[in-house]
């Protein structure tokens, strides 16, 4: 085991795969010489050279188009889109091109590529640099969607995403870059499509993603200590493929599901989970599914306002206490 920061784990994951497979290449804005605006890719240029680690012009369409064309001709590119908000600028490549061309061509081409991007709020950057857009991606058939919450998962899931034969949109959370955690030494690869149970409780099940995972864990501690509510906490980790087996099992076990989502309310990923739970284990539920989300608003910038809208530990505790029904 070694302790790494979430941002160091990004570079460690890419380096592990570049070391293993000469077809893995990496491109993006400011990723090489500058080591990334979040310093998540420091050292890769020095280690693997400018042929494999390429600084691009500020051209999001060209970045994703280039990654796609390289993937369909034998390389395994990792492309960085600096902020996930910028995906809107090149969404054509995600939603129309990369996700669909295998299907449209009757399986003639493969797209083994990863799009890494910094997602989420908490940095006071305002409405165009703070969004959680994982639910946009989840709505597109043909692209896998992953969002790790710990350094170990950053490395392991990133490695899995790079090895995966399908395109993966990999959401790193900006407010987690500085967090630290144990990462297994040596080669570390996780598997996509598996949720992780972080804590078991008997009353409620909380499903969370990315930065909402540590907040849900902290909330679960308070709920247990101060309010006598014991919670199972699941880190969903991967929205596509979705580990519905774990979700259903853990929901059945407590009879109560809460989702904690950073995305704005409408069509957030929790709505899909709620619908699955409703269709498949309705009679095991003791109460309605409750979604704790950011309201359906653009994100405000200043700390007071941003903290008031993104689910916080306090708000999770509050909403669980308000919503839990022990009748």
């Amino acid at each position, binding site marked *: 085991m070694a302790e790494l920061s979430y941002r160091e784990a990004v570079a460690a994951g890419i380096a592990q795969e570049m070391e293993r497979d000469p077809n893995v290449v990496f491109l993006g804005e400011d990723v090489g010489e500058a080591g990334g605006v979040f310093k998540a890719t420091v050292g890769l240029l020095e280690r693997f050279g400018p042929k494999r680690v390429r600084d691009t012009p500020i051209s999001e369409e060209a970045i994703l188009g280039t990654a796609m064309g390289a993937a369909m001709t*034998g390389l395994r590119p990792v492309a960085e889109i600096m902020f996930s908000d910028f995906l809107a600028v090149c969404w054509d490549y995600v939603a129309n091109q990369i996700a669909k061309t*295998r299907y*449209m061509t009757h399986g003639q081409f493969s797209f083994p590529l990863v799009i890494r991007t910094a997602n989420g709020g908490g940095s006071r950057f305002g409405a165009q640099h703070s969004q959680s857009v994982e639910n946009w991606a989840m709505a597109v058939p043909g692209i896998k969607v992953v969002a790790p919450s710990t350094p170990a998962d950053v490395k392991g899931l990133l490695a899995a995403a790079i090895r995966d034969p399908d395109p993966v949109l990999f959401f790193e959370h900006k407010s987690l870059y500085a967090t630290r955690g144990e990462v297994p030494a040596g080669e570390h690869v996780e598997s996509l499509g598996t949720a992780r149970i972080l804590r078991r409780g008997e009353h409620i099940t909380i499903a969370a993603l990315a930065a909402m995972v540590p907040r849900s864990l902290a909330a679960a501690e308070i709920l247990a200590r101060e309010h006598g509510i014991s919670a199972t906490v699941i880190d969903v980790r991967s929205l596509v493929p979705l580990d519905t087996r774990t979700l259903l099992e853990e929901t059945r076990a407590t009879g109560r599901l809460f989702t904690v989502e950073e995305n704005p309310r409408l069509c957030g990923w929790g709505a899909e989970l709620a619908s699955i739970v409703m269709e498949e284990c309705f009679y095991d539920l003791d109460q309605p599914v409750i979604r704790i989300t950011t309201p359906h608003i653009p994100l405000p910038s200043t700390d007071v306002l941003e903290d008031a809208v993104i689910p916080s530990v306090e708000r999770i505790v509050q909403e669980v206490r308000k919503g839990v029904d022990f009748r």
Partner: protein
Amino acid sequence: MTHGSPSAATDELTPQAVRLRIYRMLVETRVCEKRISDLFLQNLVKGTSHLALGQEAVAAGVAAAMEKDDYSFLTFRGHHHVIARGASMKGVLGEMMGRECGLMAGKGGSMHLSDAKLNIMASYAILGSQLAIACGAGWSAQYRGTRQATVAFFGDGTANLGAFHESLNLAAVWKLPVLFICENNLYGEYTATHRVTAVEHPAADRAAGYGLERIVIDGNDADAVYQTARRALAKARAGDGPSLIECLTYRQSGHSRADPAAYRPKGELEEWLERDPLTTYRRRMLELGFDEAQLEQIEIETQQTVDRATEEAKASPPSPVSLAFQDVWADGGIAWRN
């Protein structure tokens, strides 16, 4: 009508054998495209189709200059390129008609023709995207150290999209072995491109912005296209970077089957029909001393090939419904959950 001064003159001669190949491609694309049009009128073509009648010389000239393992990236108006690169006519016609024998078994349709076996790296229907994707194929060939070149086609209207500019810049900076070939047919859908474009030549007049040579050629002259493409391909293979080539041509039919092209000025079509790429090439070959019987032989053979392909495609069953539930993922399936 805007005629650029053809800057790439037909200075070298096209070899005889190549001329015959080009002629066959011209005839094949013309006859096949006309057949698609007929099938559409018989209600046998599903969806829409965008014909390239009148633009065949661009496809034939470029395809004749390419190597087998070079990559092609095409647009929704791509039938002619697919045929010129040697795809099965049965596969093309079958795709139009939604048959199991179609190039993509009916899953792509007329706008997405592709054939991985021939490095026809798909046809794209969101304007401009193919240019950025082609950069990736070019980068990949450069990275892997092959001599493969990549050719991406686009229309005059597409030169006003961001993807065009991003792709040209990246390709120039990375010296990618990519040819960006504009088929300037004067219109983007129903709008004359000069009405909405700041420069006379939508592609070539932007070349300087990317440090590239300004190249405008007669896109109805298959020899000019062939020779220009050959030089650009040699440059790409030598590691000297991309080329941007604007071919002046004309689409003789409407934008799609729904378009009677009433917006054309009177006489414009007639003027361009006089410069039809097929008839002018045939005339040139006769002037150069080719035996007319040899050309007729090509015409007869092609007619037979297209007739046979039509019958075979018609006889092919419709795409089986099971195909709808395949190939979202590399494992062949569509599962998004366990």
